Every structure is written in C-alpha cells, then in structure tokens.
C-alpha cells in the first residue's frame, strides 16, 4: 500500500477525472474530453474504466469487476487484483454486495440500487464513427442534433438482412438529446440502461472521453416505426440454472455439434444454483 497513492492515480489526476464525470452527469450522454493517463495495461483492456473507477473509489467501497458477464476471466481477475493491490479495497463477486462495479460488455442481471455505481469500459465512444469519419463533423452533428445518419445505419441493416441486425453497441438517445454508444453491451441490456437507480459512468481511455447517465435517466433505443427495437437473446433456458430471463452465452462442447447455453452473468447463475434451480446440463 505504501508504494502507491490510493487507487494508483495521483490526487490531481483524480480531481481532473472527477470534474469530467460531474460534467458528464450534468449533460447526460455528452462525451466529455479528459486527459487520459497511461495505465499499466494495454489500451483496449479497460484503461478508461480503470481510471474512472480509480477516481470514484473510496477506501470503504466494495469493488466488483465483470468481463462479458463473468467474474473469473483474465480481464476481470487482473483489474480486480490491480485495485486490491493499489487501493486495498474489499472486492466481491456478488452484485448486491458491491458499491462500485466495473464492467466490460454487460449489465448485471440483478437490478442495481441507488447506492451503486456502474463503470463501463468503452472502446469507441463515438456512435457516428463508422458513418462519418471526420471527428470535427461528428462533434458538429452532436451539437446541432443532426442524427439522421444514425438511422441510415439501421436502414442499411434492414435492407441487407431484413431486420435490424445490430446486436451490440446498439445506439440510444438520452433524454431526447444526445445519441450515445452504450459500449458493446448486447442490445438485450439496452432496456436496463434507462431509468436505472445506479449511476452509470462510461470511460474510454484511448479515445480520452468520459460520459455518464445519472440515475433514472430516459434512454431510448433508436428504431423505425415499422421495425421497432427488440431486446433479443438466445431462445433457450440456461443449461445450468434454467433461467429464462437472463442473457445467454453459447458454449461449444465438442466437434459433433454439441453446445450449451449458459448465463453470461456468472454471479446471477451461481446464486440461482445455490437457491436450488437446476438446468438440464447441470452435473
């Protein structure tokens, strides 16, 4: 503990990040530029999320890290141990016990409360990036609320696939104003973004942007009148806990076509199994 300042970053840096967070909370969905620091991990591994987490953590917090819903994958384990070492905070895998949750590509199945903060790792914060390559132009489009182009992407989806094929990083409109990239969460999670009790913070380290959703913010997924938004998931129950309401991962079991569907949220699945639920593939 004596080797590092609390939570790795120095106090001035945290102050700068907190300012960006406050501005982001004041203007929901607006991308606030911030002076992203070098972190002891490669870009793409969650440098933005880690900096936001470091800025909001206090010594009394309990910290949880999710990577694609799981608590036990490389990214989750390494970020969790990073804050164990540099902040000495308690860590947990239980969603309800955590006060700060850093996540990559999922929102926990269990509803969050007003006492929690959800920190997202964001690879590309600009929803218009692949439609309009000029950053100067996309900023102007955000400031003038010119979002017709976002629908061109959805139009292309329908004309090519017959339905809106975008299944993750599905664009949303925040409080009727800013169009926002919700980070690559599956569109199954999109309805949870809106009206959430917890504070949601989004950090993009390489792109040097922070944006935020304050509690109980209106978030609407973009769609067409005749092709409404649909939160889709694999049409199976979880093979381990038999849950029908959670987002599922498909796991290939062998090279004979064997596969099983399991909850991507490992904590949710474990809690259900501990409560006695059992799926068809459970040993």
């Amino acid at each position, binding site marked *: 503990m004596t080797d590092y300042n609390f939570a790795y970053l120095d106090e001035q840096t945290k102050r700068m990040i907190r300012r960006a967070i406050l501005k982001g909370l004041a203007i929901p969905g607006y991308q606030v530029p911030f002076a992203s620091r070098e972190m002891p991990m490669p870009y793409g591994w969650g440098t933005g999320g880690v900096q936001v987490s470091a800025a909001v953590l206090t010594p009394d917090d309990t910290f949880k890290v999710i990577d694609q819903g799981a608590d036990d994958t490389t990214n989750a384990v390494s970020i969790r141990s990073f804050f164990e070492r540099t902040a000495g905070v308690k860590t947990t895998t239980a969603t309800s016990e955590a006060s700060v949750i850093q996540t990559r590509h999922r929102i926990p199945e269990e509803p969050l409360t007003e006492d929690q903060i959800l920190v997202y790792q964001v690879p590309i914060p600009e929803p218009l990036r692949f*439609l309009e390559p000029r950053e100067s132009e996309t900023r102007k489009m955000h400031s*003038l609320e*010119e979002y*017709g*182009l976002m*629908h*061109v992407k959805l*139009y*292309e989806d*329908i*004309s*090519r696939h017959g339905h809106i094929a975008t299944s993750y990083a599905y664009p949303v409109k925040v409080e009727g104003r800013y169009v926002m990239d919700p980070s690559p969460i599956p569109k199954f999670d999109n309805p949870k973004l809106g009206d959430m009790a917890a504070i949601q913070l989004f950090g993009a380290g390489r792109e040097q942007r922070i944006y935020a959703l304050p509690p109980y913010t209106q978030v609407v997924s973009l*769609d*067409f*009148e*005749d*092709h409404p938004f649909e939160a889709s998931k694999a049409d199976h129950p979880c093979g381990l806990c038999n849950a029908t309401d959670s987002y599922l991962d498909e796991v290939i079991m062998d090279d004979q076509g064997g596969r099983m569907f399991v909850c991507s949220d490992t904590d949710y699945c474990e809690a259900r199994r501990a409560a006695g639920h059992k799926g068809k593939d459970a040993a």
Partner: protein
Amino acid sequence: MTPLLSVQGITKRYGAHIGCADVSFDLYPGEVMGIVGESGSGKSTLLNCMAGHLAPDAGQVVFDTRADGPKDTVTMSEPERRMLGRTDWAFVHQHARDGLRMGVSAGGNVGERLMAVGERHYGDIRGKATDWLERVEIDADRVDDRPTTFSGGMQQRVQIARNLVTGPRLVFMDEPTGGLDVSVQARLLDLLRGLVRDMGLSAIIVTHDLAVVRLLADRLMVMKSGRVVEAGLTDQVLDDPQHAYSQLLVSSVLQV
C-alpha cells in the same frame, strides 16, 4: 414577385487573391441561372459562398425561406443554414463520390435526407427512395447495391435523386456533367431539364460547357478573374456576346 435568391455584393478573397468580387444578381422562382467562365474564374467560389460552404468576406445571400420570408443566409445561425441545406436547398457535386456515401446502398443514400428531416418509417423511406431511383432511370432492383458498383453516369443520377427527394426549391450544381462521356451527358441533361421543368425548380449551374447552359439555363453570367463581365438571357449572350472574353469563350467551342 419576390426573388427566391437575391445575391448582393458577394466578395471572397484568398489572401491577396480575389476569389470572386462584388457579384450581385436576383434569381426568381422557376428560373435557371448558368454561370460560365474558365478555370479559376471564381465560379465555384461563388457557388460555394451562396450554398453556405464558404463564408464570404462581404455581401448578402438573401433566400426567401418558407417560414420567415427573405432572410440573409450568411448571417443566419449555422443550424438554420444546415437545415436549409437538407430541405430547401440541394447541392450536386461535380464528382458523385463527393456527394454520395460510397459505403451505403443507393437506397440508403437517397433515404438519408428523408431520415435527416425526421422520417422514421422504413417502408415509406424505402418506397420513396425506390420511386426516386426510377425517376432518374435506375432500376428498382439496384436499390440495395452500393454506388461503387454503378457507372459514373449512374452515380451522378443517384446523387441527383438523393438531392431532390426532399423536394428542394433551389438546386446548386457544380459541373454536373463534368467527367461524363457525351452520350451519357446528353441523357443526364435531358433528365435534368425534365426534372427542373416538372418540379418548377430554380437552379444555379456552374459549368465551363456552353452546351449545358444553352440547354438548361434561362439566364447566363460570364465570369472572368472573379468578376462578372457579362450577364443576360442565355441566347442573347451566346449568340451576340458583347464582352471580349465572352466572344472568345463562344468562339472557342469546336464546331463538329
């Protein structure tokens, strides 16, 4: 009658050089104005100043808006000007790839302006896009193909469809037939002439091709070194040029 567009004293300098100087004219509804001149005579600068792509150093561009009547577009706020740019105005670029999104299907390209003004019904957007592609003589079954798979003439026609789909009142065209071979040029001109007449469009066409203005334009301005040297009815200017440069321009056309 109120002019649709009233240009007064437009001046644009590039440092010590003159882009265009002190250009004034009125354009009435349904009228097509041609601007001719050699390369570097300032005709594209003038067009870009009028269309709001460049900020002129001096002068006014007063447009007769649907809501508020005549309004100076140079001093109006940027959101208003950009709104005009996707509703009442259209801009046809010389190179279709400047005006099209090459990674998006033809239908998406035509539909973009509709979505930009708030249409949110996929079936309607697609229906209108298909209809417009047919009006510019592109088969309905090419609606999902990207412009990269189209010929130069077809790309130019997609660009025209994309611009006219929201029913603009004023179209700016920068060398719309440049880079096309003569037979394709002729068909495009025929198409443009039909659309302009049917929709009662006003248009400003910048070109160095006198045949284009002879066919399309009611009135003509001849530019040289950033200034208008002669203006008048198209036939009058082409058949009886007064200024030395106009005479040179008219006599430079090869007779086959």
